[in-house]
């Protein structure tokens, strides 16, 4: 037992060091670099959220953006219509995200595979339309603008540095959460469910509850990220906050890095977000085209994700580009 505790302290220390290393650059960075890093951190959170339901539990959600949008709109509506302060809207966004995940999860988590993917996609697209058509509350297609400066501002605008820290803290929280899940009985239950639900149930795992819990945790992380994002953007629109592209990005990042691993989604988010920014700056016309090519290549060369790929290469002391693919080819 003492050994376990020492282990635990080592991790806390590790994260503390990470925190210092990550926050130190805030004073050294340009504002634009802070903005880029803030978006990297945001995608770490989103990818980890997807990782819990898609990577660990094996339920490939294609509608996680619904939590992002709901979180963002909770914050925006409360700040605009109710004059609430930003800090009060954060827990509210979390409650909405978790609550919606649980409610939606009850019927939808009975579906498997592609059916689950389509259903989640349908819920997200449908929710966007609902937001568009409830203009009285949400401003419809014209969106909402949060008062960020002047007398109307309920909370002073944190600026680039402020959002850098907000997303950093949330990303660290997400990492710690997933790290904890991976080592807990709950994490093992999710991994068992991803392989065989009947066998998991026979082993005594309440599969319904575990799946809903994983979905709710994904809802929690994603809605918090959405809430902070809404305030950061000031003006929000349904097409932006419920964009299917955001869902796709979280899946791509988590899978690129390694779905079902702790650090994979972080690695994926960092690499792909930087890559995407670099392509945007250097290959303006071609950047999406090249990005598509990179995704295709990544899937073919390392379908198990970068983290697993690197681990296998390290173990076997050789890099075998198509080894993993051979396992999955027809």
């Amino acid at each position, binding site marked *: 037992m003492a050994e376990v505790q020492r282990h635990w302290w080592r991790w806390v220390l590790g994260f503390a060091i990470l925190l210092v290393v990550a926050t130190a650059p805030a004073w050294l960075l340009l504002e634009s670099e802070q903005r880029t890093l803030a978006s990297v951190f945001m995608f770490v959170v989103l990818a980890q959220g997807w990782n819990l339901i898609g990577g660990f539990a094996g339920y490939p959600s294609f509608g996680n953006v619904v939590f992002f949008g709901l979180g963002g709109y909770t914050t925006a509506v409360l700040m605009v219509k109710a004059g609430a302060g930003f800090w009060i809207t954060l827990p509210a966004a979390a409650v909405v995200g978790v609550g919606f995940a649980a409610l939606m999860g009850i019927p939808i988590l009975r579906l498997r595979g592609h059916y689950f993917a389509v259903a989640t996609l349908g819920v997200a697209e449908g929710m966007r339309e609902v937001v568009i058509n409830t203009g009285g509350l949400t401003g419809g297609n014209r969106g909402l603008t949060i008062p960020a400066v002047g007398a109307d501002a309920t909370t002073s605008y944190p600026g680039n540095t402020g959002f850098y820290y907000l997303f950093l803290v949330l990303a660290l929280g997400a990492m710690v959460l997933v790290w904890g899940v991976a*080592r807990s009985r709950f994490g093992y239950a999710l*991994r068992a469910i991803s392989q065989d639900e009947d066998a998991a*149930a026979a082993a*005594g*795992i309440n599969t319904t509850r575990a799946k809903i819990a994983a979905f709710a945790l994904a809802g929690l992380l994603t809605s918090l990220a959405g809430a902070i994002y809404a305030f950061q953007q000031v003006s929000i629109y349904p097409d932006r906050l419920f964009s299917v592209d955001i869902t796709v990005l979280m899946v791509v990042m988590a899978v690129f890095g390694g779905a*079902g691993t702790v650090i994979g989604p972080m690695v994926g988010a960092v690499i792909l977000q930087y890559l995407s920014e670099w392509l945007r700056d250097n290959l303006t016309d071609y950047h999406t085209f090249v990005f598509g090519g990179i995704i295709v290549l990544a899937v073919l060369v390392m379908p198990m994700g970068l983290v697993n790929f690197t681990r296998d290469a390290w173990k076997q002391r050789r890099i075998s580009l198509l080894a993993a693919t051979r396992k999955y080819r027809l």
Partner: protein
Amino acid sequence: MTAVLETRGLSRKFGGVAAVSDVSLSVAAGEVLGVIGPNGAGKSTLINLITGHLKPSTGRVVIDGQDVTGRKPWVIAKTRVARTFQIVKPFRNLTVRENVAIGSMYGPERAGSAPEAIGQADEALDRVGLSEKADLTPGDLSVADARRLELAKALAMKPRLLLLDEVMAGLRPSEIEPALDLIRSLRDQGVTVLVVEHVMKAIMAVSDEVLVMHEGSELTRGEPDEVVKDERVVEAYLGKRYAERHA
């Protein structure tokens, strides 16, 4: 003494076809009930009905005097019921040891934490002879070892009632005897066992009582020696050749 497992008029229909119809059985503590029958006789469906993986159309399932009909599999598992699957269902993304540990993580005697459960897994691995392969993943196991893993996962739950769905299928004759010894030693510890098996000799050697199923219902039931002599059984399941050989 009350029966550990009892079913009353258990039936299940799939789109009008009765996979199991009106099966009533009762197994006392520390007894081994063998269930045999040709393919499609409803043996696996019977196990699925008992463990809650399927809901019965009619009838009751009583475990240790408690009616558990229609309960979810994980609820039934908590009443110390463990099972294996005919088509092995390993968790391919976990090591062999972690596979087994799942049973003690969520079984009736929950381990305090995941690492604790993983530490306890060796006992069950030892019993089935998989200790040396504990760190492999299920994909690297042979057919026989995959069946052993299936059994170890069930044992890790420390069951009072164990339902075995063809754990000996695909084993070589030399591998069957250790498996039978294991079932006997479990019985001697007071575990009640229901064995569904195709390997005839095996089931006769280990069962206290044998239930013969045919087209979903009970054909006959009795001690192994009597059952083998029953003419209906011979015709329905064993075929004439077996009867002649053992006449």
